[in-house]
């Protein structure tokens, strides 16, 4: 417990000092503000003469924001997580730390928690911007549903984090780790509409988030339950894989 606290403190400081927290917050903020602004000024940006632009609603804006989070947020997550263990093993800093009384579990868990916190900060900043501008420029998207949907989007990013950390613990090459995580996340997203997958795949989590935002509630609780179960399992696998590595 003590070493987890020390490691977490260290990882959080790293998120701050390496500007990761700032960059993530800035990216989310940009999309949070950008999406409602874009929808509002689309008619100015694309002067419509031959065709009529549809009237956008708050729901359209929120839907677009959430899918941006799913895509851009997922890419950002992979970029942030792919080297998180791999590069430490490659550079030898992991050996320095793990030759001291720090368990592999605390080492990995601290990284997971710190990155999840950074993503949470990003998600909150982005959601706040998106909510405010949608409220002002369009209509109230419904604070409760909107917050719940964003929370679910964050869970999706945390899932992506744990998956990428698993591969980062296995490969010394961070591009291999990131690449594999990306392929799996894309496959999960593409197959999220299929039978069983629709009910239990983490890839369907963003569909549930959209449904929540639209006020229809969660359709398949199995998706949420499966994701929440998979996150600790992936971390456990990462621990198991990394424990056997030569440092």
């Amino acid at each position, binding site marked *: 417990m003590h070493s987890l606290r020390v490691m977490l403190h260290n990882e959080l400081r*790293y998120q701050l000092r390496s500007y990761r927290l700032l960059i993530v917050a800035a990216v989310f903020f940009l999309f949070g503000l950008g999406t409602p602004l874009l929808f509002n000024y689309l008619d100015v940006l694309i002067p419509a003469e031959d065709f009529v632009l549809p009237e956008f609603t708050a729901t359209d804006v929120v839907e677009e924001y959430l899918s941006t989070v799913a895509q851009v947020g997922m890419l950002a997550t992979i970029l942030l997580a792919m080297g998180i263990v791999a590069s430490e093993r490659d550079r030898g*800093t992991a050996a320095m730390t793990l030759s*001291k009384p*720090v368990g592999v579990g605390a080492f990995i868990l601290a990284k997971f928690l710190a990155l999840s916190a950074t993503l949470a900060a990003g998600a909150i900043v982005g959601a706040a911007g998106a909510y405010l501008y949608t409220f002002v420029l369009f209509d109230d998207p419904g604070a409760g549903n909107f917050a719940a949907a964003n929370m679910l989007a964050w869970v999706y990013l945390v899932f992506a984090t744990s998956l990428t950390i698993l591969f980062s613990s296995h490969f010394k090459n961070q591009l291999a780790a990131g690449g594999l995580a990306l392929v799996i996340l894309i496959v999960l997203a593409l197959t999220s509409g299929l039978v069983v997958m629709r009910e239990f795949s983490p890839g369907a989590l963003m569909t549930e988030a959209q449904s929540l935002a639209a006020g229809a509630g969660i359709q398949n609780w199995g998706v949420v339950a499966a994701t929440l179960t998979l996150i600790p399992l992936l971390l456990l696998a990462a621990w198991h894989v990394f424990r056997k590595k030569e*440092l």
Partner: protein
Amino acid sequence: MPVILCRNLTKVFGKTPALDKLDLTVDEGTIYGFLGPNGAGKTTTLKILTGLSQPTSGQAWVDGIEVQPNSRHLQSRIGYLPEEPSFYTWMSAREYMKFVGRIFNLSPGENDRRCDQLLELVNLEEAAGRRIAGFSRGMRQRLGIAQALINRPKVLFLDEPSSALDPFGRAEILETLNRLKAEATTVFLSSHILADVERVCDIVGIIDQGRLVIEASVDELRRRFARSVFVVEFEETAPAFAPLLDALPWIERVHTEMGTEGARFSIRVKDMVTAKQELPRVVAASGFTLRRYETEMPTLEDAFLQLLGRKDSNA
């Protein structure tokens, strides 16, 4: 009581054997020099003993604790300087030291004191606030030594601690090691700088291809493997000197270097006692102007080179 004990320690990387049934015993309070050519298995041994790597077979104990990968029980009482110490470069030296102190659960006050003390010991107090990213190799090695000492380890593992150090740094670390020894710390160090090993180590173990070739005190090694070599230099080129020696029964081999400035003879003898008495007479009788006459100090390097059967040095 042995503080480090290896029994049949074997490590195979794929098909490459790195350690081959290594047996090793190191007693408490010794400074043990672990030598061997490149790829002999020194780093591999250190990594196993510090819980960073798992042996393929065999067992090891450090301070009575059986070595297991990532064993916190073990790791809380050892210090380790890797071959190429690597740090979180976004930190300053002091921040890294504090981080390590917190891992070892030092109280904040104790941690501060210890960090200052150790940074001063390795002469990094002025650079302590600078980011490690800008540190030179030698500065990193100094910091690596400091961080290995923060928990006052019972056993200190150092993988080539002086390879990047300047002469001051080397002298300082040797002095530090001697002081640690006085505090009953056991030091296990690998090195290629045999002059350093000679100066501090009580016992030397030489490993080759994963096996211990010999283990002895520095003095014993010197005695056993030292070449008995005399060096004689004359002011003039002295072509007649070597034939003079060749006739004598106690001479083994003469190596001649002639220059315009004079001549240098490295003389290897079979019988040191006779040589000590006779050689000065031969020199005097030769009539050449003597510039230098000395018995070469036997070095650990001689023992190392002879034992491992590599090419002989200058004699």
